[in-house]
C-alpha cells in the first residue's frame, strides 16, 4: 500500500541530500541558540527560597537615601589597603556593609586558583552566621570581552551540609574594548546558621573549574529584639514579631493579619531609625525579602550592626497593596484578552511582541518594577517563565512589561498571574520602638 507515496517521500529525502549547505551559518546559529540559553540560565540562577521571594536589582528600586558618605576614618583605611577602593565602590549603596569595612570586620583573603591563563582570586569576605559576601577578581592573560561564572558552589570543608537560601554569582562582565581584569561580588545566604569556619569554593568559568579554600574569622553574634507590635496602614495590619541584626543585614520577621482586606506586597520604605534620626533602609541590590504574601514574611534591611544605638525604631509609611478579592491577573492568550485584573484598569493593550506576552502598565509616573510572580494555567499547573522584561516610556508614563512563556495550548487558557509588585499604595505613619 502507498508504495508510490513512499517512493515520492524517499525521492524528496534524496533531493535534500544534495542540497548545498553552509555549515558555517549552521554553526553560527547553534552558537547563538546556545548563548541565549546560557544567558538566561544565569539570569534565573538566583534561587528563590519560596514562591514569593523579592529580588531587587540596583536600577529597579530608587534608593530611599542617596549614596553613603565616606567617613574620614574609612577614607584613611581605604588608602592603606590596595584594592580596597574597588571593593568599597561595590558596596557603596549598603550602609551596613560600609560600616563592616570601616570597623575592620571585612576580612582580607587573597587566595586564588589559576588555570589556562585565567586567575580567580577571592580578595576578601564579609561573613556572618547567615551568609557571606565574597569579593572576587578574575585576571586573564588575554584581553577578554566577556567573562562570567557559570557556577559557584560553597561547601564546608568538614562536609557539614549547608542549606542555601539565596545566592548570586556576580556579574556577567562584558567590555566592548576588552579587559584583562574584572571584579565583582558573590553573595550566599543560608536557611540555617552556619558554624564551620573553613570552606571550599568551587567556581566554574566555561569548562574550567577553580577551587579556592577560605578560612573565615569568628562571626560576630547576632542581636535579637523581640517586638510583637502591630503596624497599621489604612486599616491593614502588620504584626512585627522580631528584628534580628546580623553584620550583613537586618532581618524583620513579620506576619500579615488574616483579617486584612488587602494583600500587602512590597513594604516600600520600611526602615530602622535610631535616636539621632539616622536611617538604615532597604537592600538596594540583592534579595530584599522572602516568605509568603499573605502570611509570614522576612524583610531584609541594611544592617546597623556596627552602631550601638540608645534607641532603635522601625518605621513604615507606605506599602503596595491590592484588594484580596481582585489580586490576580487572568488572561486568555488565545483571544489576547485581559479577563481580570486589580481595580483601576491599569494594565492595557495585551499583545504578543518578539515572542513575549506584553502589557502596558498605565501610571502617573513610570513604575519601574517587573510586577509578575508565579503564573499558573487553567489546570492549576505552574508555568515556567523564562524571563521578564521591563521598559518605561517616560513621555507616556507607561511601563511596558513582558513575560516570556513556553508555547501555551488552548486547554491551558486562561492563565492566572500572581503579583509581587503593583502600583497601588496604602499609607500611614507608623513608628514602633524596638529598643
Amino acid at each position, binding site marked *: 500500500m502507498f508504495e508510490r507515496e513512499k517512493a515520492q*517521500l524517499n525521492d524528496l529525502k534524496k533531493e535534500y541530500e544534495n542540497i548545498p549547505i553552509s555549515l558555517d551559518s549552521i554553526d553560527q546559529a547553534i552558537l547563538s541558540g546556545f548563548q541565549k540559553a546560557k544567558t538566561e540560565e544565569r539570569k534565573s540562577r538566583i534561587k528563590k527560597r519560596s514562591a514569593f521571594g523579592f529580588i531587587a536589582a540596583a536600577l529597579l528600586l530608587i534608593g530611599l537615601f542617596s549614596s553613603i558618605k565616606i567617613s574620614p576614618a574609612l577614607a584613611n583605611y581605604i588608602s592603606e589597603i590596595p584594592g580596597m577602593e574597588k571593593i568599597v565602590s561595590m558596596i557603596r549603596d549598603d550602609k551596613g556593609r560600609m560600616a563592616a569595612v570601616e570597623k575592620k570586620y571585612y576580612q582580607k583573603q587573597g587566595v586564588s586558583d589559576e588555570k589556562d591563563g585565567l586567575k580567580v582570586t577571592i580578595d576578601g569576605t564579609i561573613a556572618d552566621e547567615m551568609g557571606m559576601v565574597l569579593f572576587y577578581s578574575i585576571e586573564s592573560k588575554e584581553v577578554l570581552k566577556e567573562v562570567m561564572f557559570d557556577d559557584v558552589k560553597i561547601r564546608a570543608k568538614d562536609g557539614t551540609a549547608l542549606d542555601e537560601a539565596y545566592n548570586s554569582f556576580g556579574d556577567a562582565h562584558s567590555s566592548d574594548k576588552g579587559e584583562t581584569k574584572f571584579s565583582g561580588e558573590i553573595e550566599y545566604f543560608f536557611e540555617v546558621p552556619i558554624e564551620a569556619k573553613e570552606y571550599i569554593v568551587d567556581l566554574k568559568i566555561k*569548562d574550567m573549574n577553580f577551587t579556592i579554600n577560605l578560612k573565615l574569622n569568628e562571626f560576630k553574634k547576632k542581636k535579637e529584639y523581640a517586638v510583637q507590635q502591630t503596624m497599621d496602614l489604612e486599616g491593614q495590619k502588620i504584626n512585627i514579631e522580631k528584628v534580628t541584626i546580623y553584620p550583613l543585614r537586618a532581618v524583620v520577621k513579620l506576619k500579615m493579619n488574616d483579617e486584612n482586606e488587602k494583600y500587602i506586597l512590597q513594604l516600600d520604605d520600611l526602615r530602622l531609625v535610631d535616636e539621632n534620626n539616622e536611617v538604615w533602609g532597604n537592600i538596594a541590590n540583592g534579595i530584599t525579602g522572602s516568605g509568603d504574601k499573605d502570611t509570614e514574611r522576612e524583610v531584609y534591611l541594611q544592617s546597623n550592626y556596627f552602631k550601638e544605638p540608645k534607641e532603635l525604631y522601625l518605621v513604615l509609611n507606605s506599602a503596595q497593596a491590592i484588594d484580596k478579592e481582585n489580586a490576580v491577573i487572568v488572561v486568555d492568550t488565545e483571544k489576547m484578552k485581559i479577563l481580570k485584573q486589580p481595580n483601576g484598569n491599569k494594565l492595557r493593550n495585551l499583545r504578543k511582541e518578539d515572542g513575549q506576552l506584553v502589557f502596558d502598565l498605565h501610571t502617573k509616573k513610570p513604575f519601574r518594577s517587573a510586577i509578575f510572580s508565579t503564573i499558573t494555567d487553567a489546570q492549576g499547573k505552574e508555568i515556567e517563565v523564562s524571563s521578564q522584561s521591563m521598559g518605561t516610556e517616560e513621555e507616556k508614563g507607561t511601563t511596558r512589561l513582558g513575560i516570556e512563556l513556553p508555547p501555551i495550548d488552548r486547554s491551558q487558557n486562561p492563565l492566572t498571574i500572581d503579583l509581587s509588585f503593583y502600583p497601588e499604595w496604602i499609607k500611614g505613619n507608623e513608628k514602633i520602638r524596638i529598643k
Partner: protein
Amino acid sequence: METEQLVKEAIKGNDEAFLKLIQTYKVDLYKTALSFLRNEEEALEAIQEVTYRAYKNIKKLKNEFYFKTWLIRIMINYCNDQLKLKKRVFMNDEMLNSLGVSEDHTQLELKDAMLDLDDRSREILTLKYFNDVKIKDIAIMMQCPEGTVKTWLNKALRALREKLDEKGGNLHV
C-alpha cells in the same frame, strides 16, 4: 565518546558534550527545517531556537538512547508552530533557485501536500521517511504502542494520497 555517553554527560550539564551532540545532528536538523520551512534563513533561525530549547530541556530527557528522535521532534514541533504562525506561502521560482534545488512538478506538489497535512501526520512521515527513525523508536518517543504508530503512519500516507489526488496529476495504480 559514544553518543549515549555524550548524552549522559550533556544531561549532567556538560556543555561541551551538548554542543558535540548538536554538531552530530545539525545536518539532520537543518534538512528537516528546510523541508518544512523551505527557506534558508528561517531554517537557520530554527536551528538557533532548537539548540536553545534542547539546552533548556535536556534535563527532562529520560532515555539517552532516543536523543536524536527527541531532538528532531523539537524541530518538528517548532516548525509546525511556525507554519501555523505564517499562513502558507507558495514558493515561486526565485525562492526555489535560492534553495539551490531544481524541483520537478511532482516534488513541489508533494511538499505542498505535506504542508496541508495535520501536525501528527506530518511529524510521523518526517520522522519515518526523512530522518529514518524506526517505528519502535517513534512509539517510545510518543509513548504509545507500535501498533498505534503503524496505524497513524497508514492514516498519514492515506491523507497524503488524498491531498495529492486533490491536486490532480498524481496517477497511481
